[in-house]
């Protein structure tokens, strides 16, 4: 299937989902749905680096938080300017400030892409494990920086006022959900396109045997940097609207370990070699979590994710997609 056709179908599916969710008059559907769709973006982003090239990023939460905090910083800047602005200029200023969320998403993505590139540049020339450890340490350090940065609220957090309505759509939550849905479509199309391009074959060569890839002329370092940048940027884009969703952003919640765990567990459970894997993993695990969150408790639901991750890694190393492929292949050979 060609990419434009795939894009069209993905957009159609997203549109149908959005319209279907509007049918029952239930705001909570969007609140819960937002989290799941956000994880589709995070899991797909993680998979571009982790699944395609085999470099594990434990710092998803940090990229997500940078995206979120770049929004907080920009909104705070806008508010500060607003107070200094003479009344005559204010209406003009309000035309483009605070920045609309799509612009914030692009900025968050750019910031995180740069961070990803820097991380990769410092660590990717060494063995893969160093990259993983550095991402883990980076999450702790960036959290330290944000906690000490009073401008964005420091350790006590920052409030972001969410407008009640979005013109033409109804509630603001629906607008946020719709944006995230578009972002998920973008992420999936990007992942699928990469998978079938020269870039994707290069990534796969690195994953299977980096030394052999290097020897056959694959520019491994450059490809790995492309992967970290892309993956980081997508994670940042997923984080940028988050302050509007949550209303009150705190370092503890933005850097929560559950983002790191989920964005690894979801692709691992679904299957890491194709774009379908993270999608399936997220739909299953994300829905399960939302249900468990309501019916049991949030701590138990995190335990569930951890145990599922360990279980799948040991028993089904190629995830659900791998299990199906094995069965399909076994039937084909009969």
């Amino acid at each position, binding site marked *: 299937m060609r990419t434009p056709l795939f894009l069209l179908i993905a957009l159609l599916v997203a549109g149908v989902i959005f319209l279907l969710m509007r049918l029952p008059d239930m705001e909570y559907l969007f609140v819960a749905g937002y989290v799941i769709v956000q994880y589709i973006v995070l899991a797909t982003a993680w998979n571009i680096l982790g699944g395609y090239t085999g470099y594990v990023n434990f710092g998803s939460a940090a990229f997500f938080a940078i995206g979120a905090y770049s929004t907080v910083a920009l909104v705070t800047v806008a508010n500060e300017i607003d107070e200094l602005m003479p009344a005559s200029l204010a209406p003009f200023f309000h035309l483009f400030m605070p920045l609309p969320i799509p612009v914030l998403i692009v900025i968050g993505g750019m910031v995180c892409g740069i961070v990803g590139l820097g991380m990769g540049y410092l660590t990717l020339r060494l063995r893969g494990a160093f990259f993983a450890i550095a991402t883990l340490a980076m999450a702790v350090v960036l959290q330290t920086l944000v906690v000490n940065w009073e401008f964005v609220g420091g350790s006590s957090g920052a409030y972001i006022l969410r407008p009640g309505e979005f013109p033409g759509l109804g509630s603001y939550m629906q607008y946020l959900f719709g944006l995230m849905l578009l972002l998920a479509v973008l992420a999936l199309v990007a992942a699928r396109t990469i998978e079938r391009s020269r870039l994707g074959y290069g990534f796969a060569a690195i994953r299977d045997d980096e030394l052999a890839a290097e020897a056959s002329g694959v520019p491994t370092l450059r490809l790995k940097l492309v992967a970290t940048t892309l993956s980081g940027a997508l994670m940042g884009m997923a984080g940028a609207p988050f302050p509007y969703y949550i209303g009150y952003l705190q370092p503890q919640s933005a850097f929560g370990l559950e983002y790191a765990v989920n964005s690894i567990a979801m692709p691992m459970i679904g299957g890491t070699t194709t774009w379908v894997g993270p999608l399936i993993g997220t739909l299953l695990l994300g829905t399960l979590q939302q249900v468990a969150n309501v019916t049991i408790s949030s701590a138990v639901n995190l335990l569930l994710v951890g145990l599922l991750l*360990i279980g799948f890694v040991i028993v089904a190393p190629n995830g659900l997609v791998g299990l199906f492929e094995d069965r399909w292949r076994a039937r084909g050979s009969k």
Partner: protein
Amino acid sequence: MDFPFDLLINAIVAGLLLGGFYAAVTAGISISFGMLDIVNIAHPAFIILGSYIAYILGISLGIDPIVTSVIVLPLFFALGCGIYQVYYLAFEKRGQESLRGLAFFFGVLFVTEVVLILVFGVDYRYVEAPYIGPNLRLGMIDLPLRMLVPCVAALILFGALQLLITRTFTGRAIMAVSQDQLALQLMAANPVNIKRIAFGASIATAAVAGALLIIIQPVEPSVGREYIGRVFAICVLGGLGSMPGTLIAAMLLGVVESITSTFYGPSWSPAVAFGFLLLTLAFRPSGLLGR
């Protein structure tokens, strides 16, 4: 403005004491990551587990945390052997240790933390011992016993490990397994057995490190995460698996962190380890005493 000289001296001494403790925390990683090539990022979680065991026995039976850690040492050793067995069968044997092995240990880290939160909650826990509180004073230098005792205990642990590794057959086999498995087999030693023992020993050090941790500071389940950056920074800076290098690196990090927190405030000290790690990776990836 005259420079606060006594403040600096005290910061350095406190840093050296802290560094001794860091050496105990890193000893296990030096074995598992440095020598066996097993990226055990769950190590800090086992340290926290050790802290909680010291806490439980201290509260219910009144046993000293360091004595507790020696008692549970065999248990942790067995736990380590068990984990290695799973790791070996599921990942090493299939040759998938890099990506999935990492995810496995990450899952173990996460599950341990969540279980501790479910059982104990997120309150800070601490132990009581006669040496927590009093200060030793030498001239203008303060030596808080709650730092001095863990530092001495850590150095003893470290010395014992170093002796074990350099003087016994098993210890030398552990060093050999990181270099040449085939040659080790020719010496009639089974690499898998040797690795299992070594990984058991690395987890066993977590029991001691955990007891020392809860003497130094109150502990809650997510404290371990702060140590991930530190232990790997020390391990890499020390030159992956070199025990003397690890000790020097631990002391160095302790001093720099202590100076940072004295002059800039304690909320900045976690950033120091990361800076160390990145600088080392960028300029001298083989570490201070690397091969």
